[in-house]
């Protein structure tokens, strides 16, 4: 049986979809058979960032409504044949998601794939709720700022009390924090929260820190998840995060301002 991982946040625009796309490619590159599912019904942009928007014929809601089979709706990635995308629908309403419908799709995906990665919409409503309800693990994407941290706290609370695991009395959903849009310069200046601050407030360990990086936008625009851009800091940081999610021990990188090397920092610049 595969594992369900939700990428969630509470607050909007913090980098969930960017993260989902990169983690999906990262897991695929590590040989995992993976499906990534867009729960942002009505907005649909995971497929754009994955670069498969022109091949969307059927979507998540079509599968739930029985318009097509799950197999027909899954879009195989052109770069990794062990990676598939289940797109959201642009035209349909969020109410199209039903608990039974989503459960059926998730359970079918679990039997086919090692990892089912769910890209949650912002907020704590229907779409976000279903995205996290079936999760075994959660990657909570948080920006180092108060409002994002508060919303993540809220989402963690809902997950610990209302997820399927909580309802069935199973071991709790495993929680990870992924700090994104991190700017060491701004942390140093004191206008951004540090990793320690965020970990302390939320009481959850950070599994990765993705620096603010201009390559993210260009990657999104070209439909190539930033993790595949080996020259970008953000891409390398996502590669590290994937490794940690798979249990590897990898030191944190890109935490210091102005990218000084170790010796440079020791002896000043």
């Amino acid at each position: 049986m595969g594992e369900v991982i939700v990428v969630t946040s509470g607050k909007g625009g913090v980098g969930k979809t960017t993260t989902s796309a990169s983690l999906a490619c990262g897991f695929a590159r590590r040989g995992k058979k993976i499906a990534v599912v867009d729960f942002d019904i009505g907005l649909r942009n995971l497929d754009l960032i994955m670069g498969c928007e022109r091949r969307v014929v059927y979507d998540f809601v079509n599968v739930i409504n029985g318009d097509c089979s799950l197999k027909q709706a899954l879009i195989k990635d052109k770069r990794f044949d062990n990676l598939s995308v289940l797109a959201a629908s642009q035209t349909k309403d969020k109410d199209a998601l039903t608990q039974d419908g989503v459960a059926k799709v998730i359970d079918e995906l679990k039997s086919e794939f090692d990892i089912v990665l769910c890209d949650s919409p912002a907020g704590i409503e229907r779409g976000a709720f279903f995205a996290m309800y079936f999760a075994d693990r959660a990657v909570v994407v948080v920006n180092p700022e108060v409002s994002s941290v508060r919303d993540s706290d809220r989402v963690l609370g809902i997950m610990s009390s209302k997820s399927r695991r909580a309802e069935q009395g199973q071991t709790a959903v495993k929680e990870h924090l992924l700090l994104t849009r991190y700017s060491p310069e701004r942390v140093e200046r004191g206008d951004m929260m540090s990793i320690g601050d965020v970990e302390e407030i939320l009481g959850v360990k950070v599994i990765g820190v993705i620096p603010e990086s201009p390559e993210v936008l260009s990657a999104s625009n070209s439909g190539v998840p930033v993790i595949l851009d080996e020259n970008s800091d953000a891409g390398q940081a996502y590669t590290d995060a994937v490794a940690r999610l798979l249990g590897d021990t990898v030191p944190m990188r890109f935490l210091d301002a102005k990218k000084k090397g170790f010796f440079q920092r020791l002896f000043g610049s």
Partner: protein
Amino acid sequence: MQGLLFTPAFELKSAQMSLMVLAVRRFDLDQLQIEISQHVAKAPALLKNAPVVLDLGQADPKPTAHQVTNLLMRTQVAGLRVVALVADAIGEPLAHAVGLPALTVGPRRKKSDEAPAKPTEAEAAAAPTAPEIPATPDANPGAEAAPQEPAEDAPAEPVAVPPLLLPGPIRGGQQIYAKGRDLIITGAVSAGAEVAADGCVHVYGRLSGKALAGAAGDVRARIYCLSFGPELVSIAGNFKVFESAPREIAGKAVEIYLNEGRVDVRPLKA
């Protein structure tokens, strides 16, 4: 047959309950309405529509019956229900005038089987219009077991009521209410979370949200936390709001208690 015929339709029992007292200091209708709504908004789960006893003993200026009627309406709009007036020289005639019962607030009253009575607690014994239960916040579903009813009439053996014990963290948006007992949280209480108990509240972690002890009116209830940084603390309905924690106690292990009707915070000695 006889049983059916002669079973009385009612039973008059004596019961004790604690109610919050709304003690008016400055009788300014507009200001009172604003402040009461603000208070209720801070802890809606606990206070919304809570029954209170109106104490006009210290009210300045002394209101007329007409003004009290006006205040009753405004209090209701603001989210509290006045169920009676405190029966003192001022309250007694006003209570008659506005058609509410007048209640004698229990002074220190010793009972052999009971700890000293709570000074601000309103004794509602045999007052038929007094509500049966104090304000009952929405408890986190599943977090609370059946409420513990105190033994009726009979001077019961003092039994330790087990606390409601929950692992933390209690996160933003979550509400916990330990009815009739203490609440122990082994972990943090996040900003935006609300933890309340009729007894004491213990937080073995950082307190960043709201904590309310003595929710049913026990002024002896206290709050303890390992790291102080709450949005609000309340003992028996007496609030203190913190925009930010004062430097001397921020992040410290503290005890929060009621000191002559005011909420006080003091560091716990190591």
